[in-house]
């Protein structure tokens, strides 16, 4: 069975132990969390959590069932399996920008519709948002110029609404 990345969307009670329980479920069973994003939902008693993990079908089935078994967990959806979905991640990239490269960095920002959010004599800090593939592309292109630091948020995802109901 082949391993695949799965993006899980989890609704969980907004209580102190909840996140620890979810993280513990993964560490205790040797499952890996590739990325994890959590924040309150419209209903402040619930948190929404987007979790990316990798595994074969059986492992993912176990992960989802184990998540559902947690008393705090309200809902688990494997968005990867539920048809189309939008996925976004944001990264802040601090890139070397000396005299000779400043223009090139700006051009790249233009092409990828990134925003420059901080400027110093030797660096630009760029904000980039998009699906993981886009972030990856930007990072690859900026690498030769010299990336000093990257911070990424991890993925958030949402199912696409059906176009013709």
């Amino acid at each position, binding site marked *: 069975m082949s391993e695949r990345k799965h993006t899980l969307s989890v609704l969980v009670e907004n209580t102190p*132990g909840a996140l620890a*329980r979810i993280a513990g479920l993964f560490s205790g069973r040797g499952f890996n969390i590739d990325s994890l994003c959590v924040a309150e939902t419209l209903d402040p008693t619930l948190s929404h959590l987007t979790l990316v993990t990798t595994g074969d079908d059986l492992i993912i089935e176990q992960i989802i*069932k184990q998540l*559902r*078994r947690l*008393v705090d*967990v309200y809902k688990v959806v494997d968005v990867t399996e539920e048809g189309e979905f939008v996925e976004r991640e944001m990264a802040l990239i601090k890139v070397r920008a000396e005299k000779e490269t400043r223009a090139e960095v700006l051009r790249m920002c233009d092409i990828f519709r990134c925003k420059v959010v901080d400027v110093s004599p030797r660096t630009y800090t760029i904000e980039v948002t998009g699906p993981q593939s886009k972030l990856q592309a930007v990072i690859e292109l900026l690498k030769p110029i010299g990336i000093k630091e990257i911070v990424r948020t991890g993925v958030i995802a949402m199912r696409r609404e059906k176009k013709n109901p």
Partner: protein
Amino acid sequence: MTGAQMIVEALKREGVEVIFGYPGGAVIDIYDELYRTPEIKHVLVRHEQGAAHAADGYARSTGKVGVCLVTSGPGATNTVTGIATAYMDSIPVVILTGQVPTKLIGNDAFQEVDITGITRPCTKHNFLVKRTEDLPRILRAAFHIARTGRPGPVLVDLPKDVQQGKAEFYWPEEIRLRSYQPVYDPHPRQVEKAYRLLESCTRPVVLVGGGVISSGAHEEVRELAERLHLPVTMTLMGLGGFPGSHPQSLGMLGMHGTYYANMAVANSDLILAVGARFDDRVTGKVDAFAPMAKIIHIDIDPTSIQKNVRVDVPIVGDCKRSLEKLLEIVKEVARPEKIWREQFKEWWEQIEIWKKRYPLSYKQEGEYIKPQFVIEKLYELTRDKAQSGEIIISTEVGQNQMWTAQFYKFDRPRTLITSGGLGTMGFGFPAAIGAQMGHPGKLVVDIAGDGSIQMNIQEMATAMEQGLPVKVIILNNGYLGMVRQWQELFYERRYSAVKFQVIPDFVKLAEAYGALGLRATRPEEVEPVLKQALESDRLTLVDIHIAPEEGVFPMVPAGRATTEMILV
């Protein structure tokens, strides 16, 4: 009302009759309240592990929620083995732990420990109560979570200031937790499919697990097995879920299961597993487990299904309700019993051949007492009670546990109390205390090894104090027998650290606690000593010196196929 009052009030409303516990600074307010509450009996143990196991034994034997109460820090950590034991076997227990005042939490205060953090992986759920007014709601939820769905231990951590604070007592009559909704009713189409498979198979086996006992489905299992003429095997946790003395019983399967149970499972074309989770002690090498069988798996916990073995018909639901639905179809279809009999005739013939070829056996000869002989004698002497459910047997862990599982016939549910999933030495005796508290009129016997009994032997004082006439039968082989057996078979007899240089004189020890101590060293002494113990109305310790190097057989070496049994 103060928090402590609320806690005790909540316990009363939950119908708690007995609490097993040990006091300390962080729970002194609750103890003060208990002092004024004669309706709730408090059993003072000698070690918090004993309290957790006793609450567990009470729960296993009565089907009610067991409760234990301990102080913060060391009191709380001492319960962890007991909690993990209950968790692995899905036993409803509520553990109340004291905690330092909320303001000090996280400060490494005196006797502070993050017990909710420590027990997160071995509780069904746990709570840290932050506000006094939340106490009734949280305690209500704790009991609800412990006893519903797949049962399990729930811990409630109670900071001292929360116990001392005051608030209005509000008891939620109904409890609904939006994120916790166990599924009880099986999907009708799946049950239908299960029936079709039963109708078309030729070599079926019913596999009964602990879920049958916790959901009270033993009558349904029996009715189904009898109507359809199905052979039934049980896991260790499932013993008593179907009568062990029933002609259709194959006894236990797995590592130390019977030859015929393992052969039947290995050659079956259909397994109906009810409330069993396909533990590795049951399946042996998973790839070789029942290779020709389709599997129907009934379980209330969806995570159990498809976890270890592939399942053809998953049925998520309460075991009892699921079997009721299955029985409805059986009755509706009204297929004559003759046809079922005919369908499985050859299969039964084959099973009878296996049964004859390698029955469970041993030879009582020579000067040594064979442990199997002791268990068989005990069964003989208590058969009536076993059949009526008037005897409860707990075990420790090791060979003593396996000989009991093999040679005692458990006919009634909740009459075997044993640590299956965690295999906790030191469990049996405090669990027996809990069972005896729950059933003052019944005969409660702990079958022990000389190693295991020493893990919680201090609870003799507890049993004496409560006037509990528990009988402890020590199968004393002078070894950590089960480990010795592995070393003998798989480590070329390098007996590393399995022989104690000092073993106490158990008879004197019993007497030191004020109990009755008895001993047997020769085969002919076994019966009189057992009789004397069974007739005694006191706490009794029986030290039986058994053949030191006796093994448990059959045995499937760990990781092998269950057909690769080492027979006697």
